[in-house]
């Protein structure tokens, strides 16, 4: 129920507040009613046809760096 997928915005209709987004190259209609300042090219989390949030690329990279760092802990 709470599952949401990352999707890239490829077109926005400013009149309806609806956008077309690509989920792994599958196009879906997404409502932008719950988000502000979303632009074409942004990644958003899509849940039941609504963009819930923008995905923060810098934070994603930081998290991936944390994973890599964890594995570098020297063996005791």
């Amino acid at each position, binding site marked *: 129920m709470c599952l949401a997928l990352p999707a890239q915005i490829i077109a926005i209709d400013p009149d309806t507040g609806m956008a077309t987004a690509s989920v792994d190259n599958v196009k879906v209609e997404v409502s932008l009613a719950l988000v502000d300042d979303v632009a074409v090219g942004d990644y958003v989390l899509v849940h039941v*046809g609504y963009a819930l949030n923008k995905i923060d690329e810098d934070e994603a990279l930081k998290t991936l760096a944390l994973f890599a760092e964890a594995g570098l802990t020297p063996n005791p």
Partner: protein
Amino acid sequence: MKYISEFRQQGLARQLARAIAQTVDPDRHYRLMEFCGGHTHAIFRYGVQDLMPANVEFIHGPGCPVCVLPTGRIDNAIQLAERHDVILCTYADLMRVPATGRNSLLKAKAGGCDIRMVYSTQDVLKIARENPDRSVVFFAIGFETTTPPTAVAIRQAQAERLTNFSVFCNHVLTPAAMQAILDAPQPVSIDAFLGPSHVSTVIGSQAYEPFAERYAKPVVIAGFEPLDVMQSALMLIRQLNEGRHEVENEYSRAVTRQGNLKAQALMREIFELQPQFEWRGLGLIADSALRLKTDYADFDAEQRFSLPAIQAADVKGCECPAILRGAKKPQDCKLLGTVCTPENPMGSCMVSSEGACAAYWSYGRLSRKSG
């Protein structure tokens, strides 16, 4: 797929597993509750449990809205479709949940009721526009993630004067459920929580700060991908080793401390707290669910149609209630994999793609004492 495949890399999973093995204190047992069914499924689908040291145990939580909805509410929805001749719209997850008398929405639909599966609340509005002579009811269910889309639809229906649209509201709240687990008369022993993932995109990580403080339990907001779950487990183990109980945010690419303020404002505008609401497995929990405010009473299906409160019993032998409290595991249920399967579910935890029993069944965790 961007933001998915990077968080499923096998090499990094092995590194994280090594880091966890090095961090755990061999003399203690770590009981981590993953609140969300999405986490439960990630743990089994990707074999995360097998990468954990033996003294790190995942306790599966009640974070599956379909699972915690009491049977009486499904019976009410079927009544709406059968007796009030409405077009009942719902998300697919609810269609096969067992109702009283071996009934379900799917069976009621097969029996001639007009029940339609929708992907989005926008679909419900479309159905309402196309059927001005019929009453269209949205069977709304879900945690804080799924509530804002219902709120958008109600506001849009009001603006468009779609008077044939209404909502049968079953939206529930996660922090209240986490408290109820620890406030239970015989609470399950839990050391720390993997906090909700997409719920937190809406309500923000700060929503769990009073909980972590009051119960002195660490919470880490965790993404739903396997590496997210492992990193969050590592963060919880570190907190426990250091005697801390803070809210930390592993899922920072989508969750902020404040959450989605626009969605929160919309929820506040349309909904208010119900004094109490029944959860399967957890019983009546105060301030744990939402209802429509008086200003929006015209869109409240419970005001528009007479729906009696129904106390319905679960199927005999079904351990869903104890599983949802974390008191039992799916393999403790005699029905699991024998009479209860996803094709013929006896309890809600086998139906939902977030249910713990469905995870055990789907990913081959059925080994019992009998082998």
